[in-house]
């Protein structure tokens, strides 16, 4: 079975290519696949019809209970023959019908056939749902074609919206059903049907989905609209196969769920009302296809009522009608296709005298209509007899006489519109249209003839039909009158009389009232659907216009208000007890608090960018001290270093930007809203902080960390967490940092690549004014590139002395991190600051001299080292990121003990160094380069010449000024 599905998919994919070579011959090739299904099902039929079944399953995610389960039983076999048989005939018919775009049509039709095959074989509710929606998608593609006509797009959209909407409702029902039953297997639900209120709700939802798919009123509007599709598509999808999916689902679940309260009333009322009303409407339309479409809706209503009724006779009648309808309705559609193809019209008012012009088609269509009307000895007759029998004697169904009356009324109208179809299509005196119609090719009519013959053969050979349909019906117990058997002649019974009466009245209705009486018009759901769609469009425009105003501050305010309103309300509602509030932990806290808050508040009022970043840095340093007094030396160290590095990076970028903020244009009202919103968040977070610090009830996870830290060979628990316990987090984190650095580099780079690699053997231009402290000797290798006026012997000597020491310190921090505060992050940041120093004092050339490897290479190798160390344990059968303590006894050094996680920390160190270099290269060196075509910002600096020189020779000096709090021309 899986192979069949794969064959459909594979051939459907290949067909567009084959079509270019094969031309029209592609259709018979495509038809081979459904033919193979028919044959395959034939070989399985004996065992299945004897009550056996075939099961296949493909385990997809067994731990989630997701398995592709397929099952072939009697009902599936019947549907499979319908789907594949009609499919093969329709594909053969297309050989003559389709004029253009054949590859796409063939592929989609075949894909649809595959989806439908999967749908009828599925034994799992989710698998069924997936195939269900696949048929919807195929239907959408087939209705819309290339989407060139507005009518096609509209019809396709309507079909898609109605059926997927129903499908979603059905999925909800499936989930409720599956939860109630404890299994999502269809056979499991059938074997042990669940009961209860949940199941009642689920039944309503599932039935809504089925009704939408099978075009039951009031969800039927999409099916007549879908008649814009090519006629073979209408014949296959919208008569024989896809619309049967809903009916099939009803039939599939009825044995288990027919007794659940709303099932029977829903199915019977909706089905029979649809049957009568749709037949009524079929009497009004003049387009032959539209007539058949309403006829289909009507027949589907009858099928829903019969298959959902949940008695043996009704189920038998339903399955026979299912088979009969697939044969005669697709035959009729295909006949209309032939007429349309030959004459160019399908309008009853234009067609006349075609019966003589196309006798074969006329005969074939007449047989099909006779089957539809229920004339003996055709298949439709068998079904209708059984149907009347089922309702007339179905005493277990409430109001069974009313049901019979409705069924007979529907049959009467069916006969009438059948006669109207024949009369309209073939009757009348020979006219212009008939004269210009060409005779259809035999191969064109053959598939239609096969379908009509089938309806005759299966009617006469009723034993065969009974063998095919009885196994499903036998799922129900036989009724009080014993098992009903299919037969062409039961004698002169009441059923026979009623059946004949309906035919007689139907013919009379057609003959007597054909032209004199116009059936009154019924309320139309189509208009309602259109209005609803237009209203949704308008609502979307209004809603989007109101909510999506395009202003970032407004969005932000909404977010903040939501944060305060929703979790804040919960916080207030819970009224936590605050335990024993304490004003501060350490007496120095209030001073720090005032400092931090004052610095932060000053950021708000400052008008200068540089002041802003310095004040923010001050707040950061204050926070670092708070970390320190609260027993977090690692945090304090890192915060200090990061704050410094942030200052450097931001200041280097700020060199290029105007000194002052642009004057705010916000109105007072806006400002008040902002203050209130952010103030409210502040209060909320303060309360949250108070609450969370008192909310801990269970022991901390870190108790375990503390007790296990010695296993890692470390003494610093924070470092152990970072490089060992939660090393995965760290790995992710350093990757983020690397990505951010790459992003910065690509965002600020306006000119060529960064110049870190340049070594400083370029002699600086002679500078007119020498300063007293201009170095005579070379203290820094690259510093000579700078002009004398920018150099300072004091700084150069200090840097020369400090640089190696700082690097050494950074290494110390790296390796001692396991035992005392420090580690890869702080070590790397310290090393980075050594390079920052070189850059600020010696310029970019000196930085190039200090480190000759690209920053990105260092960062990348750091990440690779960390990842490698993490993955290495896999090679020794460990788990990733596992760490071991290694003890060595080298000859001179004595005992050396280290953890392998140290190498992970080295990776972190390298990465941080590389990232800092990359950032320096980006925001320092790249921004040093003169802006070639850049706009000249509104610079207060009048002296452009000096400015350019500054640019040429590195802006580190400016940064130095900035750090000293001066405001140079650039700021």
């Amino acid at each position, binding site marked *: 079975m899986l192979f069949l599905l794969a064959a459909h998919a594979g051939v459907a994919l290949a067909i567009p290519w084959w079509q270019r070579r094969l031309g029209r011959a592609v259709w018979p090739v495509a038809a081979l696949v459904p033919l193979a299904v028919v044959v395959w099902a034939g070989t399985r039929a004996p065992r299945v019809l004897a009550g056996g079944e075939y099961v296949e399953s493909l385990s997809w995610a067994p731990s989630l209970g997701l398995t592709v389960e397929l099952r072939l039983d009697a009902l599936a076999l019947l549907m499979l023959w319908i789907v594949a048989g009609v499919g093969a005939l329709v594909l053969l018919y297309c050989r003559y019908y389709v004029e253009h775009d054949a590859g796409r049509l063939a592929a989609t039709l075949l894909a649809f056939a595959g989806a439908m095959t999967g749908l009828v074989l599925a034994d799992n509710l989710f698998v069924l749902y997936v195939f269900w929606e696949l048929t919807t998608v195929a239907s959408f593609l087939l209705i819309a074609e290339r989407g060139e006509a507005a009518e096609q797009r509209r019809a396709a959209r309507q079909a898609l919206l109605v059926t997927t909407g129903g499908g979603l409702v059905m999925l909800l029902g499936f989930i409720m059903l599956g939860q109630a039953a404890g299994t999502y297997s269809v056979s499991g639900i059938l074997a042990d049907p669940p009961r209860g209120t949940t199941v009642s709700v689920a039944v309503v939802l599932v039935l809504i989905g089925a009704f939408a798919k099978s075009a039951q009123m009031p969800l039927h509007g999409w099916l007549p609209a879908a008649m814009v599709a090519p006629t073979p598509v209408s014949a296959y999808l919208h008569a024989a196969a896809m619309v049967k999916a809903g009916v099939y689902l009803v039939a599939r679940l009825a044995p288990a769920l027919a007794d659940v309260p709303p099932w029977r009333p829903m199915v019977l009322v909706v089905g029979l009302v649809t049957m009568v009303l749709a037949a009524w409407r079929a009497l009004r*339309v003049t387009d032959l296809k539209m007539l058949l479409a309403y006829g289909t809706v009507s027949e589907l209503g009858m099928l829903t009522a019969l298959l959902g009724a949940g008695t043996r006779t009704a189920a038998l009648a339903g399955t026979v009608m299912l088979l009969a309808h697939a044969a005669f309705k697709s035959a009729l559609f295909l006949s209309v296709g032939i007429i349309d193809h030959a004459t160019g019209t399908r309008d009853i008012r234009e067609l006349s005298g075609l019966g003589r012009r196309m006798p074969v088609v006329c005969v074939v269509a007449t047989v099909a209509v006779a089957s539809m009307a229920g004339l003996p000895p055709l298949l439709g007759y068998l079904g209708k007899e059984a149907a009347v029998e089922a309702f007339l004697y179905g005493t277990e169904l409430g109001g069974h006489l009313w049901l019979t009356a409705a069924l007979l009324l529907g049959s009467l109208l069916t006969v009438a519109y059948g006669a109207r179809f024949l009369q309209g299509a073939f009757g009348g005196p020979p006219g212009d249209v008939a004269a210009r119609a060409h005779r259809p090719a035999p191969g064109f009519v053959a598939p239609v003839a096969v379908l009509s013959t089938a309806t005759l053969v299966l009617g006469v050979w009723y034993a065969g039909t009974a063998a095919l349909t009885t196994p499903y019906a036998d799922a129900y117990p036989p009724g009080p009158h014993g098992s009903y058997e299919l037969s062409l002649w039961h004698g002169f019974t009441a059923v026979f009389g009623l059946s004949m009466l309906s035919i007689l009245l139907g013919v009379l209705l057609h003959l007597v009232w054909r032209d004199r009486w116009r059936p009154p018009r019924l309320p139309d759901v189509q208009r309602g659907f259109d209005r609803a769609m237009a209203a949704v469009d308008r609502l979307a425009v209004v809603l989007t216009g109101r909510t999506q105003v395009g202003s970032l501050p407004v969005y932000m305010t909404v977010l903040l208000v939501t944060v305060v309103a929703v979790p804040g309300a919960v916080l207030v509602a819970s009224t936590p007890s605050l335990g024993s509030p304490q004003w501060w932990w350490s007496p120095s806290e209030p001073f720090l608090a005032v400092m931090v808050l004052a610095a932060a508040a000053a*950021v708000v009022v400052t008008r200068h960018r540089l002041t802003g970043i310095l004040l923010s840095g001050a707040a950061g340093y204050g926070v670092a001290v708070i970390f320190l007094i609260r027993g977090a030396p690692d945090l304090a160290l890192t915060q200090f270093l990061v704050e410094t590095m942030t200052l450097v990076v931001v200041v280097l970028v700020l060199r290029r930007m105007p000194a002052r903020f642009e004057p705010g244009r916000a109105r007072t009202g806006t400002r008040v809203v902002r203050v209130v919103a*952010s103030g409210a968040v502040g209060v909320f977070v303060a309360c949250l902080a108070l609450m969370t610090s008192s909310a801990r009830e269970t022991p901390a996870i870190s108790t375990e960390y503390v007790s296990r830290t010695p296993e890692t060979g470390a003494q610093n628990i924070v470092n152990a967490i970072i490089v060992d316990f939660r090393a995965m987090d760290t790995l992710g984190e350093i990757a983020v940092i690397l990505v951010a650095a790459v992003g*910065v580099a690509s965002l600020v780079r306006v000119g060529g690549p960064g110049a870190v690699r340049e070594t400083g053997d370029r002699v600086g231009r002679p500078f007119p004014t020498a300063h007293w402290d201009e170095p005579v000797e070379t203290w820094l290798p690259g510093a000579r590139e700078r002009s004398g006026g920018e150099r300072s012997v004091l700084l150069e000597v200090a840097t020369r002395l400090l640089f190696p020491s700082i690097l050494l310190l950074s290494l110390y921090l790296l390796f001692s991190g396991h035992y005392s505060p420090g580690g890869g992050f702080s070590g790397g940041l310290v090393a980075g600051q050594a390079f920052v120093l070189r850059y600020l004092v010696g310029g970019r050339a000196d930085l190039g001299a200090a480190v000759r490897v690209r920053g990105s290479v260092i960062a990348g190798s750091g990440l690779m080292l960390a990842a490698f160390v993490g993955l290495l344990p896999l090679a020794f059968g460990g788990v990733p990121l596992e760490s071991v303590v290694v003890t060595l006894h080298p000859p001179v050094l004595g005992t050396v003990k280290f953890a392998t996680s140290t190498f992970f920390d080295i990776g972190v160190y390298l990465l941080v160094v590389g990232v800092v270099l990359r950032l320096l290269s980006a925001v320092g060196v790249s921004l040093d380069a003169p802006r070639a075509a850049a706009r000249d910002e509104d610079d207060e600096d009048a002296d452009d010449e000096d400015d350019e020189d500054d640019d040429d020779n590195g802006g580190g000096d400016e940064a130095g000024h900035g750090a000293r709090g001066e405001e140079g021309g650039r700021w």
Partner: protein
Amino acid sequence: MSTIDVTLALVVGGLFAVGFYLMLQRSLMRIVLGFLILGHGTNLLLLVGGGTPGLPPVLDGASADPDRIADPLPQAMALTSIVITFGLTAFLMALAYRSWYLTGNDGVPDDPEDRRIGTIRERADKDQDTYPDPEPDSGPDAGPADDGTQQGGDR
């Protein structure tokens, strides 16, 4: 039961308020500053929420008394947060610079496309062609079902 540190809760609240106020501005640079201050507040919140402060979580020798040392897990989380904040600040700063470089100011203007959506109906009233409803209800041709039905009625 942990002790509650009112001063630090106020600091955290204050930092959040200032940070969000700055982020509500239209200047990208102010937004970056707001992000930085918000970062300080968040790091502090992690630490404050982590419980009672104590001795540094470093085991020197055998004096491992989990009750006296500060909880190391929030510290490790805050450490990660500090470093990530640094990376993101640099990135935001670069974005602000790029925006300023390309547009000449570092303000955040309203999205013109969103503004267009807001005025779609006003413009539609002036110009029927741009009305968003692609299928205006045009009477008898509204749909094939209607089509057939009404022609049938004409018969």
